[in-house]
């Protein structure tokens, strides 16, 4: 999976699940402070990413380290592409 595919599919999750306009979806956007997600949204983000990418991340400790949209891209990339970050 290419980096661009990961970005596009992740952004689609944010657009569809959280109704965030595409122009706000930049890698440095903080998912809480800038994109307005809260603790319930994180649960839904995990479910949506699992469905979208066919991965199991619910119990992955690294989920807790995610702060920005770029962190999400890198987190998914590491799982899908075997550690390329």
């Amino acid at each position, binding site marked *: 999976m290419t980096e661009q595919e990961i970005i596009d599919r992740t952004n689609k999750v944010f657009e569809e699940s*959280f*109704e965030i306009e595409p122009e706000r979806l930049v890698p440095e956007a903080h998912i809480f402070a800038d994109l*307005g997600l*809260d603790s*319930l*949204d994180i*649960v*839904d983000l995990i*479910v949506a990413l*699992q*469905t979208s990418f066919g991965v*199991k991340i*619910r119990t992955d400790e690294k989920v807790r380290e995610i702060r920005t949209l770029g962190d999400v891209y890198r987190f998914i990339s590491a799982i899908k592409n075997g550690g390329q970050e």
Partner: protein
Amino acid sequence: MKLNRVVISGLGVVSPFGNGVSALMHGLREGRSAVRYMEGWDQYIGLQSMLGAPVEMVDEKRIPRQKRRSMGRMSIFAAQAADEAVADAGISLDREDLWRVGCVIGSTMGSAKSINDAFETMLPDRDLSRLNSTMFFQCMSHTAAVNTAQYLGLVGTVMAPAAACASALHSIGTAYDLIRLGRQDIILCGGAEELHPTVTGSFDILFATSTRYNATPSLSPRPFDRERDGLVCGEGCGILVLEEYERAVRRGARIYAEVCGYSTTANGLHVSQSNRDSMVACMKQALSEAGSALSDIDYINAHATATIQGDMEEAEAIRDLFGDTAPVSSLKGYFGHTLGASGAIETAATLKMMEEGVIYPTRNLEHVADDCAGIRHVFEPEARKVTTMLKNGFAFGGINAALVCRTI
């Protein structure tokens, strides 16, 4: 102990006729039917009734996403009806002591679609990991009350009486008590419900739904009619703003009516069958609390859903008490049985009828059934000054509720 007087100062409705009290009254005035053949319901094995009275959801995205995400259909209806009711009452919530403003909205259960979706998501593989964070908040029994209170920022008493089709009247009765006792000043109260094949199915398997009119939806349901064959489920929400009388007068509120009597009884005999004696007791108690004589009742808005047994018992109960003096009509023939919402939607419609000075008739009542005779049925719109109304609501579980309101 001196009890406060309680008045109704605002109304809000989402009904199968559309959003708003005016859409509801427009549908009644035109004598229309909101009953439809429900496409796709034929995939449910064993479901005989294909009829429903759905709401076309509009403008739900005006509710901010983080408030909306925990709302199923019924909670969206409730939030929209509450918005209308607050505006209609002329209340600015940001100027109120919100600890004194409550929200009491009942329903049979949580969002039927959400409950169905949750189990469909989870059960095939017994996999909980696909459930989203807000499914529970859509499914819980107090979902409409909680979501409406969260949406409006209400922090007073939030409750959700659950009594199936009597839920809305229970909510209004509870709100009435809370204000009478001085615990709250204002309460948004009523009921909400949503249409789903599994909801219709719960009646269908008991042979309580209409099944002979699938090809002619507008001819059903037929309350009190000799050709009635069961109920048709609808959906929506009705919200009443109940307010302490002195306060409403002080702020110059428009007052629809005073809530002056309420009662709820149970029949203790059968979980699904209605019972005339317990209905009579319920109506009598409500009238007694209101200080109303039988002859004071200018109009009875019946529960009458068009089930064979329920309509008969209600007609007999009304006949036992009132004979053929008080005009009686049921609104189910227009927009079906909105279940837990019906008591509030139909009370709102009745209050508007009182304002207009017109009683709307029982739609689809062409030939009164022998077992529903002896009461004063209304067949055509009837100009009449209605000072005091009686609203009945009955439910599975042997629950009865009756509300008396009087103009002031």
